[in-house]
């Protein structure tokens, strides 16, 4: 099992979500994060004082998948999240040792 972490542009969540459910992935978790990268941030100004805002709003998605689906899931996310502009984001894959569904107590691949 793998745990996929993807940082994407905020307005891409819906498309990514659709792609993943299209693959039959029935669960995921999303959260709002601030990302720093090559995409330059913006300036905010308050009464003449300038603030360089370097962290931009992104959405991070966590998806636990069975190992065989990993590649497909990663590709699906990448395809849906891509705009071709700087700041499209990154996908990271971690190895997942164990999973457990709280409601049923199922573990391993069944729990995902």
């Amino acid at each position: 099992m793998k745990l996929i972490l993807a940082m994407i542009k905020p307005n891409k969540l819906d498309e990514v979500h659709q792609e993943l459910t299209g693959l039959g992935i029935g669960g995921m978790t999303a959260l709002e994060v601030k990302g720093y990268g090559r995409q330059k941030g913006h300036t905010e100004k308050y009464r003449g004082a300038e603030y360089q805002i370097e962290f931009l709003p992104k959405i991070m998605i966590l998806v636990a998948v069975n190992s065989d689906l990993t590649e497909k899931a990663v590709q699906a996310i990448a395809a849906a999240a891509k705009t071709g502009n700087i700041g499209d984001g990154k996908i990271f894959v971690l190895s997942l040792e164990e999973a457990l569904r709280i409601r049923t107590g199922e573990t391993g691949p069944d729990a995902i």
Partner: protein
Amino acid sequence: MKLNRKNRRPGLGFLKLLCTVYCALFTLLAPALSWAQAQSALDSGDTAWMLVATALVLFMTIPGLALFYGGLVRAKNVLSVLMQCFAITCLVSILWLVGVYSLVFDSGSGFLGGLSKMFLFHIGRTAQNGSIPEALFSMFQMTFAIITPALIIGAFAERMKFSAVLLFTGLWLVLVYAPIAHWVWGPDGWLNQMGALDFAGGMVVHISAGVAGLVSALVLGKRKGYPATPMPPHSMTLCVVGASMLWVGWFGFNAGSALAANGVASAAMVATHIAGAAAALSWMFMEWIKHGKPSVLGIVSGAVAGLALVTPGSGFVGPVGALGMGIVAGIACQWGASSLKRRFGYDDALDAFGVHGVGGFLGVILTGLFASPLLGGFQQGMTFARQLPVQFLGAVATLAYSALGTFIILQGVKALLGLRVNPEEETEGLDVSLHDERGYNF
């Protein structure tokens, strides 16, 4: 409210002498008379009420409408809405002083007023309008000129350039608002002369702004992602606060249009309140029936719709008439803000047309019904046969003029500055892209 002054013909036949004496006396007395009139007619109670009514109507725009609209947009655009409301307030105030007040309320032609009141020249502290200082009358009317273009922004929210909003507002105020207001309220305005009834701005404010909103929405096009992407209000809390402030401020708007603290103002307050309450409930129950749940956005939208619809009639209709008008408002404007909009697919973001256009139009027509004493109204001697066509003509004329004027002005602004922000700016949100600020930093 109109003052009907009948000319009295004193001299008759051959009485030259008498006539001469009369004229001489008149000349002698004129200054004293005019002074006496001016001095004696100031009513501190009426003035007190109008000072407050002015504050209340300003309160409707900032912060009332700003919050109502600001709560309805996405968080990334909230400041752009507040900014537009605030800047419109300032810009209109200056233009009003410079000349728009004169264009509306100075006598000129049936189409537009003169320029003798520019910069409030010669008005000072002592000139009066009825029983209140004219400077105060001008301030009160200014607040109407402020809220009208501010209503329009609901239609093009979340996508228009700020510079374009400013230029549009200035041009629209002079080229669309001033003439329409003069037609309806100017001493020699043609609709006024025809006896069109518009107590507090059904035509001048709501039809003109609602239609301008529709045209803007069509000219600017849809927001990126509309209607596929959900664009839920970022803060229904702000929205409810704004709607509540609009309601309270509307007492200044409608009851203030009596220009006096009297029975007319009181009756207008009753009509206003009852129509707002009835429309809120009718929108809420309709929605409850159609969608299964009553919503906060529904009930507050209903209140605004009822308050808008009753505006032209508020000083003429009785409480039961207002109840009827309110019920109609809740149903009709709900249809305008959902079915109608979806049918034609334009993106009137915050339903400026659906609520104010539809409500204003129906309100002007229904005023021609419910103002009649037969239906509990206060307009003595009114007949449907005479009034309804005039109301209809007024509604259609303001609608057509505002539509045309808005369209032309938008083309001009587009040529000069462009109308829309670019797609990246729209995605990032207008707050950061146009103003380098964000609404919230928690």
